[in-house]
């Protein structure tokens, strides 16, 4: 196993703790935005999709890579927009708020 993978394992351990600890303090009030917010955060997959497509050479790789990019982009923008809409409702500064129909 390459050194990079061990390092990545260190990173994964720490990230798991961080995720667990940070999230266990989120009150039930915010569980819905938490769900959609973490949905947004795994939208980082778009970065990997760009790398995959960016280094793709055969047409098959390109096609699959394009699919990856499209799906990743949907995940990231959709996740962001939904979360932002939900949280706008909790925003005291614009109480009457609420996006869309």
């Amino acid at each position, binding site marked *: 196993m390459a050194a990079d993978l061990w390092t990545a394992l260190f990173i994964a351990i720490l990230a798991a703790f961080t995720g667990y600890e940070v999230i266990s303090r989120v009150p039930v009030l915010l*569980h819905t935005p938490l769900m959609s917010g973490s949905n947004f955060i795994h939208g980082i997959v778009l970065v990997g*999709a*760009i790398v995959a497509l960016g280094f793709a050479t055969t047409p098959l790789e390109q096609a699959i890579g394009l699919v990856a990019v499209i799906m990743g982009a949907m995940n990231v923008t959709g996740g962001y927009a939904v979360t932002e809409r939900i949280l706008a*409702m909790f925003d005291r500064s614009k109480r009457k708020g609420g996006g869309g129909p």
Partner: protein
Amino acid sequence: MTNVLGTVLDAVYVVAVLVFILGLKALSNPETARRGIVYAGVAMLAAVAATFLSPGLSNFLLIAIGVMVGGGLGYYWARVVKMTAMPQMVAVFNGMGGGSAAAIAAVEILGGIGDRTIVALSIAGAVIGSISIAGSVIAFLKLQGWLPSKPIVLPARQVVGSAVLVVAVGFGVFGAVVSQLVWFLPFFLLLLLYGVLLTLPIGGADMPVVISLFNALTGIAVALDGFALVSGPLGDAGYAMVIAGTLVGAAGSLLTVLMARAMNRSIGNVVFGAFGAVEETGGPIQGSMRPMDIDDAASLLEYANLVIVAPGYGMAVAQAQQKVKELTDVLEARGVTVKFAIHPVAGRMPGHMNVLLAEAGISYDKLFDRDEINAEFPNADVVLVIGANDVVNPAARRAGSPLQGMPILDVDRAKNVLVVKRGQGKGFAGVENDLFYADNCHMLYGDAQAVAGKLVAAIKKS
């Protein structure tokens, strides 16, 4: 990688990760939550831009098209969807993430068939990502009502499911060992099938738990893809994926556990239990449901000191939150104290009620957790149950009930209980509700929005 550009790009990833975590932390407080997501959004944009600008990439046009098409679709859809359709929306975006992770894994397998470690990691990412996309699509279809939301129970489903999964993984491993790509076609197809088979037998109302589970799984798939990328040309992108993916994997798992616990069930029971497919056993309840007319209910409310509102899924379907807000306003104008009792799994998403009530402009100071408010019910003059059923069912305190042990709102301990629902319909769990037959309980039949509107009118008139 030229040195300066490389350093800048590296720094962008590090800062992005830092901001992600701060953003997640900000989510623990309603005052800061919105700021948190905006910051996280900016960080994400920066990370994506940094990746796009990295030296060595090609296919720029394709990337740009992909980002614009996917991004546009996602953004548009998220802006126009109704708030009540949120759960299936989250399911779709989650599925997209899983699909993207599976597709990345496919590309990695195509390109890296020589390197055992990378192929192994990619296979793992592909397995989880594929299950996540297929399952999320089924979850979407069920919640949207395009598939029946009842559990679809196939014969011998657990055996068939396991067999499909094992064969799928077998194809993948075999393909990796013999270094032939053709084996990965059945590999992916069978995984998608497994995701479908896994999700079909799960009832519509269990979907939120399942969505949260798939959310965590997608995070893990992304992290696995990240592992496969760290030794590649853009290692830092891989690390960012490992971090963000693991964060979500951990956070999502925790959230899933919390949700299942609030329903007093295990995750295994949610996924494999086909809950809601069985009919209730147990004798009929003594007594009858007694309706009350609107004017009597209005004056009961009006002359109360403390009214506690217990909303549930019915309020969400009826889109009654705005009327409930009006009702609160007229009652408060008459000096009545109004509080809201929020059960963590009322509705069809964790914290669903909070979102709806906040949307209607009800301050979250008035929203109380189950733990905070349960002791207060005996002091309440009236509890107004609006479209809630299972979460207020005292049968949960009775041995032998399917709900047994589920933590509920103790509304039956209040002086008077008014229940708004359309008819004799049972709640999601399909269990009779003892509450409706209690002496201190009266029914207000009708659609939640209509009934709340009538109550407002009656109180205003008096």
